[in-house]
């Protein structure tokens, strides 16, 4: 009779090869370039896709299993959060401004990453790369959806969350993240991969998720810390993919080095501009703080980043061009943004405020070189105006950078008392930039950036609701007097205090 023969157990690597890499084949009924039409035009040369190393060897069965476990945990927590008025656990309602920015600016970016990785997961001719990109694509969809779900219960009670869909496309400051992701997605698959998979995920997103989410935990926001860490557990895979991909490209052909280096220069700077917003969230919007933006930058960018670039040096890669200027800006950016948000709060779907004396002292201690000298006097003066009943509102609209689309709030790298002005005439048209690096990015690809949708300029063209601030507010779904303005006196502040009061007194009876 037949005896069951004990088969040789396949190793993880060999098994994974059979489960994925072996599935593809060389087409013969269609030319290769017809099936992968976008794989070559960027100039990246790949000789052998089989040299690709799969970083984590997750097959779909394991993927479903582990991801389901993560999701069960996540939804159990946010269900409990919604049922038990978990929103009243946060330390202070001003913290919600950070979540509003997150939902309006970051969650739509997760969706872009989902679409972009779906495209890359089809356009790369190598199976290993495709599978990794496809998994990242559904992960990114997960992130967008878990964020929308987690913040949904906040939306039911607080202002500023309700119109994140309309604001994604129309709100002036959201054109910063939108243009960032649109830029990456309109590049080819390799540039997208270097932009999002490597520069953004590997070099920068630790700054977004790790210290900020730890801060969310510190401020009693279990819903956010849950989606944050839950998402970051996927990011660990994505970062590894990004690093693997860049090594793979660089090892394939020396001709790839200058192309990759330029993308690194470009995408480090674009990512830095985008993520600097997180600095403001960390330094100003967390009522209880874990660490300053400068400290997080030191750990996650300077220490980890320099280890990374030392590692990549053997391929001829040098740190991104903007690295030094980024370090110089470290002690300024969060203050420059918050001062801006405060004075423009009539036009933002989140609240601004003047930090308390204790907060200002904390900032002085964390930014000893810059804060007392450059920023505290401005806050003190704003406070003087507010106390006198003449709160400062800057009703002037801002000049935007043609590249990063940030209002040009940045100062000269070596002179914090002077705004940085850069301009260039391209084909008879004048364009403005926030920095040397943003200008250089545009000079490389002028055809791309001259078509950017610049929200302030569009206002004057009369395209954003038909002209005038009221029409504009209607057009972006901004509810004047509720979503915008100063936190002090806002509906969010009043409601939060009243509801907390109810909770306290109920408990007492």
């Amino acid at each position, binding site marked *: 009779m037949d005896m069951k023969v004990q088969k040789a157990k396949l190793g993880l690597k060999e098994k994974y090869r059979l489960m994925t890499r072996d599935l593809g084949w060389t087409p013969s009924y269609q030319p290769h370039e017809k099936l992968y*039409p*976008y794989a070559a*035009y*960027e*100039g990246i040369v790949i000789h052998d896709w089989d040299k690709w190393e799969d970083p984590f060897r997750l097959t779909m069965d394991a993927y479903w299993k582990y991801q389901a476990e993560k999701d069960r945990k996540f939804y159990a927590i946010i269900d409990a959060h919604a049922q038990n008025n978990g929103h009243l656990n946060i330390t202070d309602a001003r913290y919600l401004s950070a979540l509003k920015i997150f939902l309006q600016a970051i969650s739509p970016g997760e969706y872009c990453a989902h679409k972009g990785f779906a495209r890359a997961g089809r356009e790369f001719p190598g199976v290993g790369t495709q599978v990794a990109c496809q998994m990242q694509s559904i992960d990114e969809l997960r992130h967008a959806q878990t964020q929308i779900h987690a913040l949904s219960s906040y939306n039911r009670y607080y202002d500023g969350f309700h119109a994140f869909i309309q604001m994604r496309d129309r709100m002036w400051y959201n054109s910063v993240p939108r243009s960032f992701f649109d830029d990456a997605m309109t590049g*080819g698959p390799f540039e997208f991969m270097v932009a999002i998979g490597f520069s953004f995920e590997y070099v920068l997103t630790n700054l977004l998720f790790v210290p900020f989410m730890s801060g969310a935990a510190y401020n009693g926001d279990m819903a956010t810390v849950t989606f944050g860490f839950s998402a970051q557990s996927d990011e660990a895979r994505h970062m590894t993919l990004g690093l693997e991909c860049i090594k793979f490209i660089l090892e394939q052909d020396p001709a790839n080095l200058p192309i990759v280096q330029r993308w690194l220069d470009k995408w480090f700077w674009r990512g830095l501009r985008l993520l600097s917003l997180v600095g403001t969230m960390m330094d100003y919007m967390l009522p209880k703080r874990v660490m300053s933006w400068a400290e997080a930058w030191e750990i996650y960018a300077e220490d980890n980043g320099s280890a990374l670039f030392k590692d990549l040096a053997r391929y001829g890669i040098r740190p991104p061009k903007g690295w030094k200027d980024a370090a110089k800006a470290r002690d300024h950016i969060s203050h*420059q943004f918050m*001062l*801006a948000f405060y*004075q*423009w709060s009539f036009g933002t779907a989140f609240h601004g405020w003047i930090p308390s004396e204790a907060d200002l002292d904390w900032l002085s201690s964390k930014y000893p070189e810059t804060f007392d*000298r*450059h920023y505290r*006097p*401005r806050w003190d*003066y704003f406070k003087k*105006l507010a106390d006198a009943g*003449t709160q*400062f509102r*800057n*009703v*002037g*609209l*801002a*000049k*935007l950078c043609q590249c990063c689309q940030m*209002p*040009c*709030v940045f*100062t000269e790298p070596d002179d914090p*008392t*002077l*705004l940085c*002005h850069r*301009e260039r005439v*391209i*084909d008879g*048209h*004048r*364009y*403005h930039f926030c920095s040397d690096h943003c200008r250089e990015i545009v*000079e*490389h*690809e*002028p*055809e*791309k950036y*001259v*078509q*950017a*949708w*610049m929200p*302030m*300029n569009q206002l*004057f*063209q*009369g395209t954003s609701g038909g002209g005038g601030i009221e029409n504009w507010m209607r057009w972006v779904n901004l509810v004047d007097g509720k979503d915008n303005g100063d936190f002090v006196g806002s509906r969010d502040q009043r409601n939060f205090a009243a509801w907390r009061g109810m909770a306290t007194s109920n408990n007492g009876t």
Partner: protein
Amino acid sequence: MAVVALKPYPLRPVDGIEHYHGDQLVYWSWDHHLMFAAPFITCPSPSTRVVDFLEATIRPLIAADPDADRVDWTCVEWIRDHEPIAIDVGKSFSENGIGHKDLLRFRTPGMNTLCG
């Protein structure tokens, strides 16, 4: 440099003066006065006298700065694209050769109350 693309990728600006209904964009920035987070974007008619626009629009925008009252438009130093420029504020934008999307910086030496 040019964008790397699979097909011809024409340069198509979307911000030309023709979109501004006869007006033009002009940016303004007051050097060393960082109370205002960023340069202002404005949209005057090219035929407007510069001083009229300064008084009607820019003066109110900068009024909150403690130095604002001391600004005399005939004495400020003007800079355009990193070069000094002479502006006759009694004349119009077009007469002064100020074009679409020019950035005008003005300097008021001796005044820097909030930006030591």
